[in-house]
């Protein structure tokens, strides 16, 4: 054995052959371990929902603005594109920000508008991300492509679900629910993105999205933040306007589920 006894000194130009062999084995093992862990974590992630955000694909749409209880664009016929066959109420948000579209369509309730936007959709639910400055009123309600919707009362319901924001949950964020997304949903809802109660039947692979409004139909925002992203139970009156389900309920009557919120 040499004086050095394979003693390693890092500031020297080289290490002994024995030390080098050992270090190589350790590095190979570390790389193999990191590879296995990267693959394992990637595989163990919960499935990502199949939402679509057509980022960058701005298109022109024509429809009737509905300002309350949350900004919507009622589209029908060819304006529906491939997403609806007859008539649909699309929730609106502001493209390029965590913002609602209230300012973009203020004063245009019932008016026919042409606007540019980017579609966000999940299943049969659609949100239109409106490009700021693109909204043009082109007619009044009389010239609307479809008559005003009739509200259909679906009665009092008790529903279990999670409060999400429409924009993220329909496809801008994946995942757009659960605890790690809670802060984002809170930010979006506080900034005017439409709040939804997301109700799902995992066993049957079905889900519903209901626009959450106050019992009197007023828009809800910041008062929902303590409840966002958690498993809750909500009792309220459900109304359908076009294909949009609206849940009238007061946050004071929300109840937390015992189990933790899951995606």
């Amino acid at each position, binding site marked *: 054995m040499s*004086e*050095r*006894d394979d*003693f*390693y*000194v*890092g*500031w*020297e*130009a*080289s*290490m002994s052959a024995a*030390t080098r062999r*050992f270090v190589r084995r*350790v590095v190979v093992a*570390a*790389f193999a371990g*990191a*590879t296995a*862990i*990267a*693959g*394992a*974590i*990637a*595989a*163990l*992630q*919960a*499935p*990502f*929902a199949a*939402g679509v955000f057509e980022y960058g694909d701005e298109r022109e749409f024509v429809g009737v603005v509905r300002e309350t209880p949350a900004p919507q664009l009622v589209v029908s016929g060819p304006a529906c594109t491939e997403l609806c066959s007859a008539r649909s109420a699309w929730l609106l948000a502001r493209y*390029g*920000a*965590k*913002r609602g579209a209230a300012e973009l369509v203020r004063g245009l309730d019932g008016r026919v508008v042409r606007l540019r936007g980017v579609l966000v959709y999940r299943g049969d639910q659609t949100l239109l991300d409106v490009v700021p400055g693109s909204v043009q009123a082109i007619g009044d309600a009389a010239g609307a492509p479809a008559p005003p919707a009739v509200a259909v009362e679906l009665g009092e319901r008790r529903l279990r679900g999670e409060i999400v924001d429409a924009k993220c949950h329909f496809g801008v*964020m*994946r*995942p757009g629910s*659960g*605890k*790690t997304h*809670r*802060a*984002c949903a*809170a*930010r*979006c809802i*506080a*900034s*005017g993105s439409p709040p939804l109660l997301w109700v799902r039947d995992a066993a049957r692979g079905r889900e519903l999205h209901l626009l959450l409004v106050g019992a009197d139909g007023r828009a809800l925002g910041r008062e929902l*933040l*303590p409840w966002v*992203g*958690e498993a809750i139970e909500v009792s309220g009156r459900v109304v359908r306007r076009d294909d949009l389900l609206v849940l009238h309920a007061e946050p004071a009557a929300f109840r937390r589920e015992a189990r*933790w*919120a*899951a*995606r």
Partner: protein
Amino acid sequence: MAHAYRAVQWNPQKRAYDATLAAGIALYLALFVGAGFGLQPHATLETLLIRGFGTAALLLLHGILAIGPLCRLDRRFLPLLYNRRHLGVAMFALALAHAAFATIQFHALGDADPLASVLTANPRLDSASQFPFELFGAFALAVLFGMAATSHDFWLANLTPRVWKTLHMGVYAAYGALVLHVAFGALQAEASPALTGLVALGFAGVVGLHLAAGAREARADRQTVAAERDGWIELCHAHDIPERRARVFPIGGERVAVFRFDGKVSALSNVCKHQNGPLGEGRIVDGCVVCPWHGYQYRPEDGRSPAPFTDRVATYRVRVVGGRVWLDPRALPPGTPVEPAKIDV
């Protein structure tokens, strides 16, 4: 050593170390994102990058924390320790990328300042299950920033080794906070118990290695001296100390490294002035005791680093009688010359 500072004093080993580290990080991220898209067709690049950076940082931190005890248990791991701070800075960079991407993704472009939103968006401080995991991550990132920013020897010398070491022991607080960050965040959002198992396995590994290394140190500290006479204590036979190496003795709460070389014996404090490395686990090379951690050198006869360096450690008086090594347990001021004791048998 305490002489002049350069940003990094590159040498071939250091270049190889950093190149291997960079390749490992790139490989991990590429595999994670690639496998993520391959296995999850609806995944988004933003989400995979946030998760990739975060998991890479946590995995690297496990490696960083394992290196210390591994070196105590098996000296062959020492080459990994020499540039460990490079791992630390890289780990901080990964954690910062994770935090920056997550902050932009989840908190920017809304109604509030993104950084304020990180701390306030989840108000459920009253809930164990819903507690805002972001707070643990922010705390850990702040600790890691303090360590990364002061990683250079410039700060070690100017903060003093004691303050610097205390600051850098904060890595354990950061690790604990990151485990909580993951436990209160991703593990609650994910469904697979195997992910919880992975985190638990990593935690158990870090704790287990530290306990094993600590047990070994404790065993070494339980050595008893053979005899005492006139204030001197008898340690061992001179030939019980390997040539150009040392045996370490716990003396009055301190560890003393007693070296044998060229038919002589000298005793120094076991604590390197650089980062408190164990000098007694070093070697005598070219007439100097060399610290196994970062190669700091001290002359055995006076505990001083060779010129132009100026570091000093405490020395002890020794003598050899009938082949037995005796030590005066009163430490002399750092750098005090002491004539090495000649081995008489």
